Structure formats: structure tokens, C-alpha cells
């Protein structure tokens, strides 16, 4: 394979770029709501409510995907990372270990 196949380099590069875009689309974090901040639950009350349900909150964040996110432990003591819809308070995504 010589000169002719060096023409396929732009094609391969395009393919690589395309897969990078596809991957970065998959890479974007969860989107939890599109509602304005005024419609969101109060962050402090929201955390207090979670604590009353037995969660321990180590870190609380507002993500770029408009989620309330906590790192902490659930009531069984398991480490959890949970994304919540800040309007409804519903769990959007949960990781645990």
C-alpha cells in the first residue's frame, strides 16, 4: 500500500474526528432541567430534606447540566453520587459503590 492509500488519510482523520464528536456528545453529563433558577427548590432546604431521608452529604454541587448533584452516602452507608432534578427533586442519575 503506497501513494494511493495516503489519500485515505484525510478520510481516516475525518472518521477519527467524527468519532471524537460522537464520543464527546456521549461524554456530556446529565441534563436535569431546562427550567429557570426561580423554579428550582431552595438548595439548603433540598439538602436538609435529603439528610432527613438518611443521606449524608459530603459534597453538594450545581452542575453545568442544571442538576443538583451530591457526593455522599445513602442510608445504608454506601458511597453514592446522585444527580437530581432541582425542580422536582427526582433522581436523574445515580452512581454508587
Amino acid at each position, binding site marked *: *500500500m*503506497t*501513494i494511493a*492509500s*495516503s489519500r*485515505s*488519510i484525510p478520510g*481516516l*482523520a475525518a472518521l*477519527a474526528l467524527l*468519532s471524537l464528536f*460522537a*464520543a464527546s456528545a*456521549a*461524554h*456530556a*453529563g*446529565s441534563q436535569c432541567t431546562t427550567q429557570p433558577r426561580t423554579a428550582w427548590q431552595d438548595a439548603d432546604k433540598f439538602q436538609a430534606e435529603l439528610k432527613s431521608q438518611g443521606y449524608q452529604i*459530603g*459534597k453538594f*454541587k450545581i452542575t453545568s447540566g442544571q442538576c443538583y448533584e451530591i*457526593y*455522599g452516602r445513602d442510608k445504608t452507608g454506601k*458511597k453514592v*453520587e446522585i444527580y437530581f432534578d432541582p425542580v422536582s427533586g427526582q433522581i436523574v442519575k445515580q*452512581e454508587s*459503590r
Partner: protein
Amino acid sequence: MSAARMPLAIRLFHGGLAVGFIGAWALESPWRAAHEWLGYAAAALVLWRLGYALSRADDWGWRALLKPPQAVWRYAAQALRGRAPQALGYNPLAAWNILAMLTLVLLIAASGFALTTDRFWGDEAMQAAHALLVDAMTGLLGLHLLGVGVGSMRSRHFLPRTLWSGERAPH
């Protein structure tokens, strides 16, 4: 084994590392368990590669990977003038690009593991470090592909073909 061939083990290693890194990257959000295991698998492959380099005294050994800085500068200067010598093995820039990527894979896996521990669960500095290392890796990967592209043009051989045929070309 002919000196002109890339060992099957290296080709499988390359494929596995590519799948491990790209897979882990793509699955970070949708499938966390796979993300973690692909990352650890990539690190294991790198450890294997570093050990394999110890067992070889040819183009796949440490001598071929650890080029003295003077050789790197000289090669870079020659390359800029379009006069870099062509050879079968890693050129000095490629050797450092590869060593840096191998190191980054280990650091990415180590920081990723740290993020699963009690100490760093949700730790923003460690998350930032993990992400920064991945960005650096992606940049080096871009340079790797650029080098393969330039080498392919210069040598008029489609260098990635070596990955499935095993046949090398001076580049």
C-alpha cells in the same frame, strides 16, 4: 521474527490500549463501571508494555523508547527542515510522545482510582487533575496521529497498516 515486523503482541497491545482509552472516555457518563474497568485495563496494558520493553534489546526495548534529549532536539530540527532521517523504529519525537502517553495512562488510572476512595469521593481538585491529565493525553494523541500522518506522507506508506499486517516501512 524478522526485524522488519511489528510483533503481534505490540499490535494487540496497541489495539487494546486504543479501545481502553477511547472506550473509557466515551463511557464515563453512560456506563461508569465500564469506564472504570476499561481504565484499569489500559493501565494494566501499559504496565505489560513497560515490562515487555525490559525483555527486548531491539526496536521494542527501553533503548528505543528512552532517547537522549540531544537526539530529540537534533531530530526535531531536522524534521522542521524536512530532512529527518527515515528509519524503521520510533523516531526520537515519537519515542517521547509514546513514553508520555504511557505515563499519562498510569496517572489517569491512579487519579481515577483515587476518585473511588472515601478520601477523594467527589473531591474537586482530584476530579480536575483527572480531567486535566485526560486533556493532556488527548493532546498527545493528536500529536501521535499527526506524526503518523506526516510519516505516512513522507514514506509514502500508510503506516497504520502495520497494525494489522505487522509489516513495517522506514518512515
